[in-house]
């Protein structure tokens, strides 16, 4: 993954409210630019560096990309609290604010052609809502969730975070010494109802989604994703109800939600590059 064939520029987007850091790759004023949007606790490089590698692949094919951090996580700063991963409206508002900064920066400083948004997991629906609002057609959604699922995702993620601790001696030492925090373990694993933050801007939330009938979505799912069948059915229904103009889906056999594994990652990169390169 060398940069000899394309340029890579580190950028800072500074506003009174936030400072975002990112890397712009690919030809200047390319006909297409993909903006990689992390999930709420993610970084601009993505799980197993998938965004960076995808950006490299696109750049060698003449497509520019911007991998940029999300406020409240990684390098980015923001006066607002970190994104809540369990409430749809909070996600949409905060992604909207952040993506507006990115979009304005790109429009002010470059002359790229088509803007394509890409995200993973919780970020999926947020960028779809943003696309509707700002009339951005094409989206790449890696393992996108759906609204009903987002409230539950924190439980699954937390459970997964605990699994490796079972194999550590210190966990068992704590257990023997009655030093495990059972209250916290219970709350994290079996959270039954997500907290709801009162945010004044909730009134601005799109009560009815903005009308835009040109959405073209590309969804990639891992076959071993816990809710794979439900999520696939949800997005197919999304298309059947006319919420998006086109829906292309790909399934990576054997892969999990984040496509962990070199071969799975390469397959996702290949699929995304192919779809983005299409007219």
């Amino acid at each position, binding site marked *: 993954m060398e940069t000899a064939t394309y340029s*890579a520029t*580190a950028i800072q987007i500074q506003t009174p409210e936030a400072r975002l850091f990112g890397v712009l790759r690919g030809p200047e004023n390319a006909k297409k630019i993909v903006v990689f949007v992390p999930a709420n606790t993610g970084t601009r490089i993505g799980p197993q560096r998938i965004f960076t590698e995808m950006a490299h692949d696109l750049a060698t094919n003449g497509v520019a990309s911007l*991998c940029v951090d999300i406020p409240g996580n990684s390098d980015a700063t923001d006066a607002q609290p970190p994104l809540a991963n369990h409430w749809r409206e909070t996600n949409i508002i905060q992604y909207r604010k952040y993506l507006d900064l990115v979009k304005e920066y790109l429009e002010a400083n470059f002359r790229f052609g088509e803007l394509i948004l890409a995200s993973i997991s919780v970020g999926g629906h947020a960028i779809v809502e943003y696309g509707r609002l700002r009339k951005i057609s094409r989206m790449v959604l890696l393992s996108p969730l759906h609204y009903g699922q987002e409230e539950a995702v*924190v439980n699954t993620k*937390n459970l997964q975070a605990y699994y490796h601790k079972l194999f550590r001696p210190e966990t068992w030492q704590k257990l023997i010494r009655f030093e495990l925090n059972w209250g916290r373990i219970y709350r994290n694993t079996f959270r039954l109802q997500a907290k709801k933050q009162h945010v004044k801007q909730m009134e601005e939330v799109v009560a009815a989604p903005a009308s835009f009938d040109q959405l073209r979505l590309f969804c990639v799912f891992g076959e071993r994703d816990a809710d794979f069948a439900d999520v696939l059915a949800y997005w197919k229904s999304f298309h059947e109800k006319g919420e998006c103009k086109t829906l292309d889906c790909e399934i990576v056999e*054997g892969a999990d939600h984040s496509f962990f594994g*070199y071969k799975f990652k390469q397959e996702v990169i290949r699929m995304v590059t192919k779809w983005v390169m299409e007219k």
Partner: protein
Amino acid sequence: MSEQLDFMKSPGTGRSLFVHTHIPKQGNGCGYLMLNPAFDEKKRSQKFQAETGRMLAERGFTVLRFDYQGSGDSDGATHTMDWDQNVADAQYLSRMLKERFQLSKIGLIGIRIGADLAIQVAESDAIGKHIIMVQPVISGKRYLTEQRLRRKTFQVLHKMEVETDLVDIDGHQYEDFQGYPLSNKSLTFLVQLDTGKTTVRGKKLDVIRVNEFTSKKLYQKLKEGLSEANQFKEIKISGPEFWASMDSVDTAAISTGILEIATTSN
């Protein structure tokens, strides 16, 4: 305090290293180079590193963070990451940090395996008298075993049918650690990594333990190996294992601890 992002060429390979520098408004003549953890530990540590860098810069320290080749935003395919090259690049950047900002003292802050690499950086370099080690790995063999166990558990939990964890890339064999293929050279490096048996001398070593339950014997060996020829201190700070957490966690206590150590040491 300002922040500067650059791509700098590695003298060893000519590839570009992504560098993020935290520059104080008024410097105190001291700087720190941060060394990252590996695998997705790096991704999960990024916020902590940014916050710690900013905190140090607010107090006059110049802090340089960089991504190893083949990781983060630096050049190089993921499978080309080379531990020896990481050490060489860190030595180069330490010298560059000192010269560029005219600093009198340079220290190292290593997180997880970055802490073990920091010891190697300091072994053959006059730079880096003060090394802050955040939960070092210490034993590469044990670390490899943990990573393999984690991978196996993940595969079992997700009912993944995996024939082999070996992948062929450009005619060479690599062992895949969930998207991070390691070459035989990298694996050998890890197997041989034993930070308690280094030859580093004359340094001030502050070892931060967030998890005090990690093998006491391992830390005892580290102390025995390093305290004779160095000023060695173990510091326990209560905080989350941010490198392992899938959610955003509050690491302010650890950052503050590092700031206190840096301030009293310089």
